[in-house]
């Protein structure tokens, strides 16, 4: 559904120019025209007062028999032979999509044991394609993409989901390139279009400023990577039965070689991503010493200390505390944002928290848009009071 300009209707008012996020509308001979920067994002469609910006349907490519593709697949990644938690989240959403389409759910697992494969069945898979080829003991992009692409070609699933993890985001694009099909990155929501049966792939773009719904209408499979810790796991059923299918092909090759795998997780990273409560401070602290107050509240609540990028850039606290697009993505039960204005790059890292409590002097701060509870006030007054009250409650 690309857009074009009806030159007869265009009055040259230039209203549309500023609406385009990528500067893809230019003026030429007094009329608007769409240049090569257009990403078909559709933002401009409703802007034109004359209705001169229109979308037109793209013709499907010849030869793709999309009807012959059936079933939902998830790629279950593992590290050191142990299935990662994202796989169970994918089974949760995958089961829903498969049931919605009235088809089966299969998982693909490379480099793990049959016992692990059985776990996938208990978590909702009907079938597991398992390869125990030794080449999969380490993660190398080429053999992963060769075997997955080959399995997809053979069995023709309609939808393939993988985790938007360092592994999924690295090798799945190669699979999509090989299969000449679409891939949507880092989806936060997946639904089925009731009319067409197409997968509606919803993801944030422009640093989380907007959400986009992406379709892959004329190619199969429809492929997406899914952001970790967004989808809920499905039902675990100890007695669930399914089929394990041994998969493999000759001639898997890797031109990269993993020499060493080094674990390097600081306690703080772990704490941040696993904490039920996070207390974060930002530029509004005004001073690096403000973090001792943040620390005090966090300790009292048994939580972890987070920070905005501004506070890290100011040198008040180390980078590993940073929450946001260029830091950690977290989703605790309670997130305290203290003196954080709520720049988009921070919001995308914390907005899926269950409860967000924002404390900020500026009532216009965007952090209040995502807050569950907002307090307009001076954090140096509010937080000590809060600490006092919590201690009182606990003492009583």
């Amino acid at each position, binding site marked *: 559904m690309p857009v074009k300009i009806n030159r007869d209707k265009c009055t040259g008012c230039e209203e549309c120019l500023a609406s385009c996020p990528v500067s893809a509308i230019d003026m030429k001979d007094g009329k608007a025209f769409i240049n*090569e920067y257009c990403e*078909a994002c559709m933002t401009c469609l409703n802007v034109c007062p004359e209705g001169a910006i229109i979308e037109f349907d793209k013709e499907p490519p010849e030869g793709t028999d999309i009807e012959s593709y059936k079933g939902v697949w998830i790629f279950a990644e593992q590290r050191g032979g142990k299935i990662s938690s994202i796989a169970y989240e994918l089974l949760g959403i995958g089961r829903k999509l498969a049931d919605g389409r009235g088809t089966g759910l299969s998982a693909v697992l490379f480099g793990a044991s049959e016992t692990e494969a059985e776990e996938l069945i208990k978590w909702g898979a009907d079938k597991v394609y398992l390869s125990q080829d030794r080449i999969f003991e380490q993660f190398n992009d080429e053999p992963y993409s060769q075997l997955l692409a080959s399995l997809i070609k053979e069995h023709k699933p309609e939808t393939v989901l993988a985790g938007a993890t360092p592994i999924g985001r690295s090798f799945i694009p190669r699979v999509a390139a090989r299969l000449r099909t*679409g891939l949507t990155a880092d989806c936060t929501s997946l639904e089925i279009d009731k009319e067409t049966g197409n997968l509606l792939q919803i993801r944030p773009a422009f640093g989380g400023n907007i959400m986009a*719904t992406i379709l892959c209408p004329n190619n199969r499979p429809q492929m997406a990577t899914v952001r970790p810790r967004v989808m809920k796991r499905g039902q675990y059923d100890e007695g669930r039965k399914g089929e394990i299918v041994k998969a493999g092909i000759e001639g898997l090759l890797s*031109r990269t070689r993993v020499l060493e795998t080094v674990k390097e997780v600081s306690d703080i990273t772990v704490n941040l991503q696993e904490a039920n409560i996070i207390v974060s401070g930002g530029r509004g602290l005004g001073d690096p010493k403000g973090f001792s107050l943040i620390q005090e509240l966090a300790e009292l609540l048994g939580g972890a200390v987070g920070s905005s990028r501004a506070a890290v850039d100011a040198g008040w606290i180390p980078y590993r505390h940073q929450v946001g697009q260029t830091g950690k993505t977290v989703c605790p039960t309670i997130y305290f944002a203290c003196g954080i204005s709520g720049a988009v790059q921070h919001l995308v890292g914390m907005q899926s928290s269950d409860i967000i409590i924002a404390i900020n002097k500026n009532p216009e701060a965007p952090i209040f848009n995502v807050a569950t509870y907002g307090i307009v006030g001076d954090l140096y007054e509010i937080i000590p009071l809060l600490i006092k009250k919590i201690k009182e409650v606990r003492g009583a």
Partner: protein
Amino acid sequence: MNIVVCIKQVPDTAEVRINPETGTLIREGVPSIINPFDMHAIEAGLYIKEKTGGKVTVITMGPPQAETALREAISMGADEGVLLSDRAFAGSDTWATSFTLSKAIAKLQADVIFCGKQAIDGDTAQVGPETAEFLNIPHISYIRKIEEVSQSGIRVQRLMDEGYDVIESALPVLLTVVKELNEPRLPSLKGKMTAKKAVIKKWGQADITADENDLGLKGSPTQVKNIFSPEARPGRKMLEGTPEEQVDALMQELRGIKCL
């Protein structure tokens, strides 16, 4: 060593705001910058050139004005710039973008190709790996350190969820880089002079061998159905009154949901 760095000119997303009435992006006054991750890719290219000798070519696909991004890279020390610009490339998704880039890079006969891990407008991180697949060469994503590089191969550290892998590859290879890799240098005065005078190569559809069905919108399997503003959190409560009252109200709410 023939080094190619892929860069993208993007709107500075930190400056992007939404018009609450129309739900559209306010683009006015938002500066265009080189994608921040690509700055680290440029620095990595220059670093390799200093170690092994050779040439750094920066390449970008975009509208004619993306030329400024190439000149900025040249001012940092890159030797040449290639601008892939053609109406036939319009509306490319990651598949078509990678396909087009791979055709151009094939012409440049690269030994090492650097990309930023992702662009801050689309955030897909797909163009690097897809380009490598089209070129039929290996790639390594998220590299945070270059341990060793020679004419025959490269050894790097790849960032993973729980640490990093030390991984080696034969050449040619495509590498996508994270910010921890290096600190991009500032342009020198001499670099700025060179950049001003540099002749940028401009390639269109005719300069790469490609079927038009694989380019631009026609070549893109994915389509954007619609875009919308992220919803504000429903049921937000602003706690009013004196600080004392505000904190009491918060305590009340938190107790109600058994959090404390």
